[in-house]
C-alpha cells in the first residue's frame, strides 16, 4: 500500500479534490470569516447552483464552463438579494438570528428543489467527462484539472478584490469594526450584501466545475459544506490564501486517510486536523489574531 505507484496518485487526487473544497470554502470564508454569519444555506445554495448549471446544459445546451459566466453573476445577484432583503432584515443584526435564518433558508431551498425536481439524481454527459491525461504512472481527469486551475484564478481574483479595491477595503473595514466603518460613511448593509453575493458567486463557480464529474440531487451540496467549514477554520477566518491552502491540505489528508484507514473512516483525518488546529492554532494557518 505504501508503494509510490499508489501514494503519488493518491496525493495528486487529493489535490484535485481539495481544489473544489477550496472553492466552496472561499465563499464560506468571506461570509463566515468576514461577516461572522454561519451560513447554513451554503450547501443548499451550492445545490441550487448545480441545478442551474445542470439546466443550463440540459435545456439551453450551454457547456458548464461557459455557463459559469451566467450562473456566477446570477448567483451574485441572488446572494445580494438574500442578504439585503431576507437575512439582514430578518435577523435584526443579531448573529444568532442570522444562524437560524440561514438554517431556515437551507430547509426552504432544499425542499423547493425536492418539490420541483424530485429526489432523482441527475448527471450531465459532456464530451470531456471521461477524458484524462496520461502522465505515465496515473491518469488525471480533464474536468478535475480544469477545476484545479480555475480555483487559483478565482482565489487570485478574490485576493485582488479584497486587497486592492474600494469594495474590498470596505469589506475588511466592516469585518474589523462595523460601527467605525459606518461612521466613516460605508453603507454596511450594502457591503454585507456584496460580501454575501461574492460568497454565493464562488459557490456557483464551484457548482459549474463540479457538475461535469459529479451528480446533482436536492441534497448533493450538503456533502461539501461540513468540509468547507473545517477548511475555513484551518486556513483562518476570512483568509483567501488560507481557504486555498486549507482546501488542498484537507483534500490530501482525506485522500491519504481513506487510502490507509478505508473510505468509511477517511473523514476521521479531516476532523482530527480540525481539532488539532483548534487546540494549537485557533486563529488558523493564515488567520489574523482573534
Amino acid at each position, binding site marked *: 500500500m505504501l508503494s509510490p505507484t499508489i501514494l503519488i496518485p493518491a496525493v495528486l*487526487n487529493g489535490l484535485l*479534490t481539495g481544489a473544489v473544497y477550496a472553492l466552496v470554502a472561499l465563499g464560506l470564508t468571506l461570509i463566515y470569516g468576514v461577516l461572522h454569519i454561519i451560513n447554513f444555506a451554503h450547501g443548499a445554495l451550492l445545490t441550487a447552483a448545480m441545478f442551474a448549471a445542470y439546466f443550463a446544459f440540459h435545456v439551453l445546451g450551454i457547456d458548464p464552463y461557459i455557463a459559469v459566466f451566467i450562473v456566477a453573476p446570477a448567483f451574485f445577484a441572488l446572494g445580494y438579494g438574500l442578504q439585503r432583503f431576507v437575512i439582514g432584515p430578518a435577523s435584526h443584526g443579531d448573529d444568532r438570528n442570522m444562524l437560524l435564518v440561514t438554517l431556515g433558508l437551507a430547509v426552504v431551498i432544499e425542499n423547493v428543489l425536492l418539490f420541483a425536481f424530485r*429526489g432523482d439524481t441527475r448527471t450531465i454527459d459532456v464530451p470531456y467527462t*471521461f477524458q484524462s491525461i496520461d502522465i505515465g504512472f496515473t491518469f488525471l481527469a480533464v474536468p478535475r484539472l480544469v477545476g484545479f486551475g480555475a480555483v487559483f484564478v478565482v482565489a487570485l481574483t478574490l485576493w485582488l478584490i479584497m486587497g486592492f479595491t474600494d469594495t474590498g477595503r470596505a469589506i475588511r473595514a466592516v469585518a474589523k469594526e462595523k460601527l467605525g466603518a459606518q461612521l466613516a460613511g460605508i453603507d454596511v448593509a450594502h457591503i454585507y450584501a456584496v460580501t454575501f453575493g461574492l460568497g454565493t458567486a464562488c459557490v456557483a463557480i464551484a457548482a459549474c466545475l463540479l457538475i461535469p464529474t459529479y*451528480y446533482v440531487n436536492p441534497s448533493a451540496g450538503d456533502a461539501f459544506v461540513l468540509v468547507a467549514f473545517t477548511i475555513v477554520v484551518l486556513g483562518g477566518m476570512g483568509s483567501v490564501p488560507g481557504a486555498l491552502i486549507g482546501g488542498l491540505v484537507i483534500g490530501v489528508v482525506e485522500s491519504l486517510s*481513506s487510502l490507509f484507514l478505508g473510505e468509511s473512516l477517511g473523514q476521521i483525518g479531516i476532523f482530527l486536523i480540525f481539532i488539532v488546529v483548534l487546540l494549537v492554532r485557533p486563529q488558523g494557518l493564515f488567520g489574523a489574531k482573534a
Partner: protein
Amino acid sequence: MSNKKIPFSRRQFLATTALGAAAAAAGSIAMPSVLRAAGAPVKLGVLHPVTGALSYSGTQGRLGAMLAIDEINAAGGIKSLGGAKIDPMLGDAQSKPAGGVAEVEKMNSAGVSCIVGGYASSICLATTQAAARYDLPYVVDVGVSDSIIKRGLKNTFRFGPGFGVIANSALDNLVAINDGAGKPAKTVMIVHEDSLFGSGVAKLLGAKLPQHGFKVLESIAHPTPTRDFNTIVLKIKAQNPDLVIPADYYNEYVLLARTMLQQHVRPKGIYSVLGGAASSYKFVKEFPEAAKGIMDCNHWFNPLSDKAQALKKKVEGKGQFFTYEVYLNYSCVGLVADALERGASPDRAKLIASLASSTWSGHVMPYGPTKFVNGQNQGAVPCNTQVQDNDIKVLLPKKFANAKPIFPIS
C-alpha cells in the same frame, strides 16, 4: 404548561378515541355490505416513500401501482364484485418507517381492504407489522430483507424475491457465467456501501466466493454518500482483480463506474448484486460507455412477455424510465385484484385467504404462477442482466433470456 390547559383526561381521551375507532370499524364493515351490491369501489392503500431520500424510487413505485389500477378500472373493475372499481388511497412514508406506520393507521381508519407498497426494507418491516394489528392484508412491493416474511405475520405477502434468494442466485449465476466462458475470472474485489445492504452482500459473497474457487483480494467499504471514488479506483488498479463486484446505491454506483473509466481501469467483468445503477435504463442512456458490459443480478421483468413490453412502452411514453419499482408495483396491484376477483369479497380476512391460495400468472415478471408459502412467493427469482448494445438484456434464467453473456468484456 399547567394542567388546566389539557382539556381531556387520559381516561376521557381513551374513551372517546375507542368510541371513534369502534364507529369507524362499524362503518367500514357494515356500510360496504349494503353498498357493495351496487359495485361500490374497493379501497386500496398505495403506500410509498414519495418524499425524502427515497422519493425517486417511491414515485416510480406509485406510478406502477396507479397504471395497474387505471387498467383494471378501465377494463370493468372487479367483476365478481359487480364491476367494483379500485379506489386508491395514496400514502407517503416520507422515506421513514415511522412515516409509513402513520400512513397505515390512516389507511386502516379509512377502511382500505389491502395495502400495497413500502419499497425499503426498513419501511416494510414497520408497516407490515402495523397492518398486522388490524389483520389488514399487506403486499410488499420490493423490501428484500428476509426478516419481513420471517415473523409469521399472516397478513404479509411478498411478491418479489428476498435477499437470500437473490444472493444465492447471484452466486450460482456468476459461477455459471464464469464456467461457461472457461473460468477467466479468478480474483475478485468487492466495493460496497457500509450499511446493511452493501455490507450484507459483501459478507455473504466474501464467505462463499472462495468455496467456488475465487480469490477475494479485498473488500472495500465506503459510506453513502461518498464524494470521490478515485482512491478506491487506485486500490482496484493496484491489485488488478479479474472481477469487480459493486454493491452500492445509484449515485455511488455511477461515480464508481465513471471513475473506473476515467482511470482506464477495465477488469474482465463488473458484476453486481442488486447494483444501484447496473440495470438502470437511466444510467445506460446517460453513460453508455461507462455502463457497457456491466452485469447485474436484480429484479427484472420478463422480456419475453408481450404485456411487459406493452407496459414498458407505456411508461417510456410518459417520459419515465422503466425501473423495477414500476413493474413490481404494477404486478402487486394485479395480484390483489386477482385475489379480490376470486374471493369475491373486499373483506380483509377473506382477502388474506384468497392471497394465500393465489396461483396468478397475469403478471409481467419471470416468476411463473404465484404460490405463497408463509407469505413468500416461491417462484420469485431475480434475473441476471448485462448492458449490451445500449440496452439491458437478460442472460439468466435461461427460460427468459434474450441474450448470451459477453464475458470477459476486455
